[in-house]
């Protein structure tokens, strides 16, 4: 009974399916009224549509869990909800896509969010693009370096410029004084240098797979 053997319900069902133990699946389905499998199957969709400010931590937990265990399913669910008229659901869908997208799936959809009027949505998409090797998000991140907007959905409370700072420092090898900038004003003061860098490097910039950072 090693720790490696400890598995979640999802893993149980996944294993059963992959092992062809259909009888066991049917038995579990019958025993639980079919709810376990149905809930597992519906977890990505539920995680998006039930996203709630009332229990934001649980909402993020469900989304993150779905992103870890059912990455493709969550991404597919996210893509169908990206234009939801409910801002809460739309943000959850963007978030779900942000944590599941890869270079082959979801990048263009994320790029489409860069024009959003919501700072939360825009920065989330920009950071996600950077994470999958797509440099289209950098202008939005750089633009936010003097933006003191309180992000509505981030926990713990985060200002837009702080989010942008962490993303730029993580994904690039540049600094321009941003690393040592502690006050909001100091962070904002680096914006011009970052903009100049982007203008200069925008075409040659690419992600080096050996260090997973953007280099010129």
């Amino acid at each position, binding site marked *: 009974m090693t720790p490696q053997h400890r598995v979640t319900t999802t893993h149980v069902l996944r294993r059963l399916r992959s092992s062809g133990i259909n009888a066991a699946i049917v038995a579990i389905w019958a025993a639980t009224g079919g709810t376990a499998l149905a809930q597992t199957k519906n977890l990505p969709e539920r995680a998006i549509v039930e996203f709630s400010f009332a229990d*934001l931590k649980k909402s993020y937990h469900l989304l993150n869990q779905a992103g870890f265990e059912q990455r493709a399913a969550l991404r597919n669910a996210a893509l169908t909800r990206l234009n939801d008229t409910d801002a809460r659901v739309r943000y959850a869908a963007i978030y779900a896509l*942000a944590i*599941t997208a890869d270079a082959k799936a979801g990048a263009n959809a994320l790029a489409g969010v860069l024009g959003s009027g919501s700072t939360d949505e825009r920065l989330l998409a920009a950071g996600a693009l950077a994470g999958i090797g797509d440099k289209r998000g950098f202008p939005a991140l750089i633009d936010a370096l003097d933006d003191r907007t309180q992000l509505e959905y981030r926990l713990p409370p985060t200002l837009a410029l702080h989010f942008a700072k962490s993303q730029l420092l993580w994904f690039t090898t540049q600094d321009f004084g941003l690393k040592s900038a502690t006050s909001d004003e100091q962070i904002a003061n680096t914006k011009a240098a970052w903009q100049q860098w982007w203008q200069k490097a925008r075409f040659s910039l690419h992600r080096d797979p050996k260090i997973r950072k953007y280099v010129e």
Partner: protein
Amino acid sequence: MNALFLIGRNITLLLALLAFPHEAKSAGGTVVTVNGPAVTITVRINLCCLHDAVERNILQPLALVEIARAQAMWNDGLAKFQARSCYDINIIFDIRILSRSSREAAPPWEDGYHRLVIDFDQPGTSNVFDPESGDPNEDTISAYRLQLNGTWYFSSMTPRTWAHEIGHLLGLGDDYYHRDSMRRMNAGARPYTPLPGRSGTLMGDGDAVDQNLADRLADLMIQAGLLSPCAQWEGRIEVSNVFAGRTLAMDVHGRHNWRGNYRMKFRELPTTRSVSDASGRQFALNAFVPVEMSYAIQADHHHDYDHKWGDVILRGQATGKLTGRALKDALIGSVLRFEAAAPARDSAPPAPPGSFASWREFQDFMGAFHTAPRPGCYQLSIAFGGRGQPPNELRALYNGIDRSGSSPIHPGPDADFLRVMPSHMPDGTNVLGCLETPEQRDVKGEHTYPYADPGPLNSTEQISIKWSFVRTLCRDAVTCWPASDNASAPSNSDDGQTSGPPSGEATSDPVAGAAIVAPAATPPNVPTPNAPRGGGSGFLRP
């Protein structure tokens, strides 16, 4: 039909459990070790997972640097505060980053570690999920009982975010208003603004560690049963040694009346030590950390040696205050801690009688006390000669009491003085009793017994020891003692013995302070009071 369904369902679930073993019962991922006032919280975290060489060789070191900074944020902050005025808390992040061969493989989680999924690239919201908490602003002990789950997204984390999230693994709730919480609505506050008084702090909107966070950590550990609330004892012990009569041993007659009055303050702190009784039963030990003790010893003493050696006269009053090493040596004690599962009162020993008909009876009581203890039993010993100090140092403690009379004087006047001191002034003063409840506030008792003269007539000194303390638990928002009472004050010297103005250090080493000499007659691990020592019986021996 229903019965058949239930039977089928149970068989199916049983088969599923056999095929896929469920998780073994285990302790929480956050563990605590206590050594006197030093408390270490180790947050054991599995991070899953590294998948390739870049993550192992490039990103992992970056992440570990950030985590180290977060650990420093906590420890640099906590170093400035004593939690609940008692504890010095240090935090260790025990991080294990796991590897797995593919993203499809089951995470190789380790038992006893919190389970955090990590992502190096995506800008998700990092989160630790407490399934037992319905209010994100509440502190909970889940981290000490469970292995919590969560997800950390490295690219959007800063040292502050790390420190904040690990704060949740210490049991701390958020110190900012959540958007749709009733708490915020009732307060009429804007979302994500700090709770009252929490601005700029680590679980709120800043990076500062303050007294509030330190106290809350202590409260959580106490609530989880991992830390005892410390207590302050403040009160007095009064001792008298009265003799009037004659002993043929040295052909002495006369009288003496000595009184010692000791006012003291000390703290009761948990240790990781335990003691065992005669049957091998283990008892967790709380130690006493002396804070201060002042004393007044009055002497009215006239012994006559039937003209053979003249007489001995001791009169006057000595007063003083002990600090530093002298205090640590002069006032020692311990209490057997009430464990959460232990009943308030066990079978043995019985409540001590206040009065003993003979010295032997008192000795028997002491023996039973140590061979059959129960949680809550305490002992205190006062002694001036604990370090084997040279006679002049010991004699200085009795300044104010004059020696006169015509009896032979020892070549050394200090040794001569100490030789005629009666017992229990104070060496040999032992207080033995038992708390009835962990929360007991008033602690008092009395021992009276004859202390046998070694001579053939068995004439005796009559000893009376009374004690009375107020014991204040410091587990709530109670400030037990002002900062000026800090028992961990910096040391200027290690030999702060004095009579008169306080000097030197006080001790913060409860383990050393609880060092107890165990006579051969009792089990070696059981705390045992000091035997009378120092000046002896008070009767001059040639």
